């Protein structure tokens, strides 16, 4: 039986974007240079803060596209036939928070925008906290077997 009732290319887009976001997200911290990742052949780019930041935005674009697509399909066609699994629902909430906080973070970086520093710090730490929470929830879902977000009713 299929583990996921929706098309697998949607899952693939999702997995690629989240994996890319996890890697480039971790690399926002200045670790690549310190832990010699930049010395590994082919990984010198991990030390380029601007590039890694840009990649994070591009993976975010992919995730936001996928989320927009899935949400629209959910509202238009899926919600009567699909039900979120409990861990799926938890991850949807966490992902929603990540997307909102990440979106605000990108908005804040636009040249004509200055947000209150206290708000920026909150956005930043909510984003970091939710990233850790998503990692935990994803791990829990994988350990419990079928990790799909939704199944047929």
């Amino acid at each position, binding site marked *: *039986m*299929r583990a996921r*009732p*929706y*098309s*697998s*290319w*949607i899952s693939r*887009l999702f997995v690629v974007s989240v994996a890319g976001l996890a890697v480039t997200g971790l690399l*926002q*911290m*200045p670790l690549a*240079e*310190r*832990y*010699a990742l930049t010395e590994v052949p082919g990984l010198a780019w991990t030390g380029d*803060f*601007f590039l890694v*930041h*840009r990649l994070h*935005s*591009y993976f*975010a*674009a*992919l995730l*936001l*596209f996928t*989320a*927009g*697509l*899935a*949400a*629209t*399909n959910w509202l*238009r*066609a*899926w919600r009567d*036939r*699909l039900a979120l699994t409990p861990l799926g629902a938890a991850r949807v909430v966490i992902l929603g928070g990540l997307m909102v906080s990440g*979106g605000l973070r*990108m*908005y*804040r*970086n*636009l*040249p*004509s*925008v*200055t*947000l*209150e*520093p206290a708000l*920026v*710090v*909150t*956005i*930043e*730490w909510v984003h*970091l906290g939710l990233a850790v929470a998503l990692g935990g929830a994803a791990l829990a879902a994988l350990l419990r077997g079928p990790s799909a977000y939704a199944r*047929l009713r």
Partner: protein
Amino acid sequence: MKKSGATQSGLSRRGFLKALAVGGAGLAAPSLALAAPGEASATPGVAADAELVTVLDLSRCIGCGACVEACREANEEKFPEPTKPFPAMSPARRAKPEDWSGRRDIDDRLTPYNWLYIQSVRVRHGGADHTVHIPRRCMHCVNPPCANLCPFGAANKQTNGLTLINDSLCLGGAKCRTVCPWHVPQRQSGVGLYLHLMPRFAGNGVMYKCDRCHQRLDRGEVPACIEQCPEEVQTIGPRREMIAKARELAESMNGFMYGLDENGGTNTIYVSPVPFELLDAAIEQGRGRPHLKGVADVMAEENSAATAALLAPVAGIAAGFLGIGARLLGPGEDGHATQSKEGDDAR
């Protein structure tokens, strides 16, 4: 040289308070710097009157160093008092502590204990010799990469245009120094939050730089370096006004400006009677000794990437309305044909 009142004399205390009040109005609303109608501004944030700009008239600076001294005195309580010995860090070969605590007197470069220093050069221009002294510190960029790329929200631009590193949040990874076009922030190990987390594996102190005397600004006072300068080299005020003054001043001395367009615009404008290329070639450069080269907006590509990402959900929603990926596959359906067709649709 043409005397232009406010630029030459500096804003009076009263004038400055008035300027702050103008800024304060902007602070109440999130200061999204919208350009006023009809005001097509090439420099981002030009209309952000909440932002304060300093103009430095280099033709007046005598290199006396009173500003450097004033900066130290005014900010002494913010200087790091590191705990020693520093915690061991891994990998020891690559993670090295930086310690300036025994060299607090150094004043010929930027350090965690010296947020302002003077570059002095002699250059020939227009058939004459010029001695030029250039007070150097953080430029307070309009769209500061040090803050935009700080992963912990420790470095932040305030709504009044200055960029501040929060010493209780900074972990000292020095990313801000790497991404700053002038590599301004300087690190002191053995202080700050990292000591209480995993000092062996992450962090390496706190980054320090000019914070534009933000507490003084909050009290309605001008920064210490401006107040103590005997030659009134610096002027501070709302961005639009200061840009006009800098332009006027540059015109009056047939001079040159630096900082107005650098890195997409900064809240510091140097005005000099000699071209900055000549100054850049003459000044000593290196760690803690910033250059004076032209700087393109280092955040430009980041801005396009962010804009793409912020628009992506709209594209996703549109695709959803077109029915892309909407078909669900029942149990036992293998869906290969549909899958690849929809895959093609999506690309």
